[in-house]
């Protein structure tokens, strides 16, 4: 088991001239809920330090309320940290941008655009020439296997197909960092497994960097080569674990189960006694 699961809680500066694609330093985030005397301050994140290297598949794993989605939304530029800094290739992240493609659990597709038009949305907004946009849209519609559905509207698609469109539209937009917020959480088990495998294919083909939020230990062990375990109150990263299981990973193998059990142990050790992992 040990050879597959390596703790690396201390973040060492990477050796050589290699610069991390993403760097999160001292990030905290407080929310105020309610108003007046009933106002409560919530520490969603406290003292988060993470560096992500190009090509990594990183899962943010934690129970609900641990701030993992908040951290992802800060990286996406939808929210600003209360303290600390987030940089991509050294440049501060201040707003959403096409280099950081977000895939939402509820898809966030434009219902008035067809599959193909949804995929073409980003390239078109960035002013790419019409003929080139068409070629890009065709290519990525094909990449997620939706050629036959290119002129369908989102309302006519299943959840799995919608999520394929959501993935294709950020890939079509040349994103370098793929941010995924429990993207398969609303799908049935079979569709989820299919999409996980497809996502890994895409990741291996493109060598994208992926930051993937999930509360499923199994999903994290199946997908990630690095898992950041988060715990709540205030939200922080309690473990930084490499997963070196060979791919394709077999969820029924004893090695897989060893890693899963170990990771579940890390997750529950941060929860209050008697609380089962989510």
């Amino acid at each position, binding site marked *: 088991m040990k050879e597959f699961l390596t703790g690396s809680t201390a973040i060492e500066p990477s050796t050589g001239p290699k610069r991390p694609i993403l760097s999160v330093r001292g990030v905290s985030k407080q929310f105020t809920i309610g108003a007046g005397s009933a106002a409560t301050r919530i520490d969603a994140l406290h003292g988060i330090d993470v560096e992500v290297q190009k090509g990594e598949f990183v899962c943010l794993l934690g129970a609900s309320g641990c701030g993992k989605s908040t951290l992802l939304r800060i990286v996406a530029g939808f929210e600003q940290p209360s303290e600390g800094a987030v940089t991509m290739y050294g440049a501060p992240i201040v707003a959403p941008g096409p280099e950081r493609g977000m895939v939402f659990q509820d898809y966030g597709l434009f219902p008035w655009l067809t599959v193909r038009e949804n995929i073409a949305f980003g390239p078109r*907004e960035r002013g790419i020439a019409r003929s080139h946009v068409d070629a890009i849209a065709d290519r990525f519609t094909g990449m997620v296997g939706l050629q036959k559905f290119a002129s369908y509207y989102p309302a006519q698609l299943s959840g799995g197909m919608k999520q394929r469109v959501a993935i294709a539209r*950020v890939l079509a937009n040349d994103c370098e960092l793929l941010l995924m917020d429990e993207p398969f959480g609303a799908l049935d088990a079979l569709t989820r497994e299919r999409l996980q495998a497809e996502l890994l294919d895409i990741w291996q083909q493109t060598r994208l960097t992926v930051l993937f939020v999930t509360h499923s230990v199994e999903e994290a062990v199946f997908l990630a080569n690095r898992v950041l375990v988060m715990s709540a109150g205030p939200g922080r990263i309690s473990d930084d674990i490499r997963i070196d299981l060979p791919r394709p990973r077999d969820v029924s193998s004893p090695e897989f189960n060893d890693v899963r059990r170990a990771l579940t142990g890390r997750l529950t050790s941060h929860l209050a006694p008697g609380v089962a992992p989510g």
Partner: protein
Amino acid sequence: MAAHAAAVARALVVPALLVLGWHAAVAATGTKMVPPPLDVARTLWDLCAGGIHDDPFSGSIFGHLWASVQRVYGGFFLAVAAALPLGLLIGRVPVIREMLDPTLQALRPIPVTAWLPLSMIFFGLGPKAAIFLVFLGAFYPILLNTTFGVRAVETRLFEAAAMLGCSSSAMFRKVVLPAAMPSIFTGLRLGHGFAWILIVVGEMTGVPQGLGALIMDGRSLARTDLVIAGMLVIGVVGYASDRVLVALNNRALQWNPQHRV
């Protein structure tokens, strides 16, 4: 096609029963106040083609209809021109909402008919007063539904557009407008319906032409057949023009299964 014919047949059952009931009621009571359906049908024919009564109303329907259509659509398009941009602004710009919304909401409960005396003072006796009333009636449904549509756009769609590289200046055209379209169409359809309702009120202000004027003439001459014929024409034309709007709606919003009507 057979299914379509069956649907048409089903839609005609209730009107046929109403006409039969009307005929039976007139025959049973022997009233002279309400004409039987056949008399109204003859008057309708006369209004269209003449040759039955040969009075000043014979063959006059198209003049009345044209006058009303001009006022209905004059008022309706004025309402669209005012309410649509205003609704978009109120929905999108908080300052404008804070400045205009209370006033507009306070004016809203006033029935359009209550404006009749004032509109006659403003615009005199004539088509302008009718157009004004139609405008007022169509204005609020369009305004309220547009505002609602703009305000109800999901935050998620703004986030999605932003992370795909949509600039904040393009957001309005690329996200707000298409997302608000179903609501805007609902407003247009409601406003259009109110425009046809209010044309009769508008044309009671002493205009010589128009379906409302025809009904008022029928009333002062105790020609109830004319009154009912005018009512029927308004019903049919209002229905037909609503179907045109519905067809446009279904065409423009084919992406939205909830909004097909």
